[in-house]
């Protein structure tokens, strides 16, 4: 697991209150928004702000749509595209 993947899982762990290691079981197909009722608009907004802080990226509002949070894979791909190649 590369550092970006790791950081993103850690942020999701915080938001969802997961136990250590639980987020390691996420696969690209793990459903997020829509599958997890606790992930409401406020939680998603907090998640985005935290991603900006911890990953040092800027997320534009136009980029936020339902598909972005559909699965863990789509969120990870979006995050990677925001960062320069490591």
């Amino acid at each position, binding site marked *: 697991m590369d550092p970006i993947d790791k950081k993103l899982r850690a942020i999701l762990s915080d938001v969802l209150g997961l136990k250590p290691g639980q987020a390691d079981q996420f696969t690209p197909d793990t459903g997020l928004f829509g599958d997890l009722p606790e992930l409401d608009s*406020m939680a998603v*907004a907090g998640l985005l702000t935290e991603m900006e802080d911890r990953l040092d990226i800027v997320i534009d509002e136009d980029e936020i749509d339902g598909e972005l949070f559909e699965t863990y894979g789509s969120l990870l791909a979006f995050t990677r595209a925001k960062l320069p190649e490591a």
Partner: protein
Amino acid sequence: MKAAEYPCPLPGGAAAREYALTFDAAREKRVLIAPALFEEGHKLRRFTLEVMRRLDGAGIDCFLPDLPGCNESSQDLALIEPEDWRMALEAAARHFEATHILAIRGGGLVLPARLGGWHYAPVKGASLLKTMLRARIIAAREAGREETIDALMEQGLQMGIDLAGYSLSGEMLRQMGELLPGKQTGISVIEHELIGGSALWLRAEADEDAQQADALAAVIAIGLSA
């Protein structure tokens, strides 16, 4: 733990009585809590009380005031500005004869002057607003409406705005957006990394964490015994 009241100055020179939860045994060390703001205030309230219980157990009095327009306050939040919260904390500090302050997250943006203490997990006012603006945009999008941060801010600065269930005045938006933590002498910053565990203000559902409460209370208790 007891419910108490303190005289809170209001805009325009009036005054109200606001509630405070207190652990008061007339002890020498007396810590005023500046609570987290908005949605984070709800998510961290239980944690805040757990920290207070531990401070009480360590022989430290502590006081958690309701800020005007928040929690049990009967004041209209839409008429409140950050400066009113600062004055409320100032008044609470005087009333409860606080010797120190523990500010939590956004609470540290409205610190009263001349009271030393701690600021746990500082946050910029602009970040608090951005998260609430985003939540509104995401909810609107789910409902098939398009909103933008710029348009909401422009509208909000002129006529006020409802964000995440909070009615905020234009002045509240303007001032909150400019508030930065960490400019006050005598306030030590406690970064969340020192406390450990996953940040409770990020939780989708409010939660608590005994270890985190232990850790934060220990930092304060050790600081006060030095």
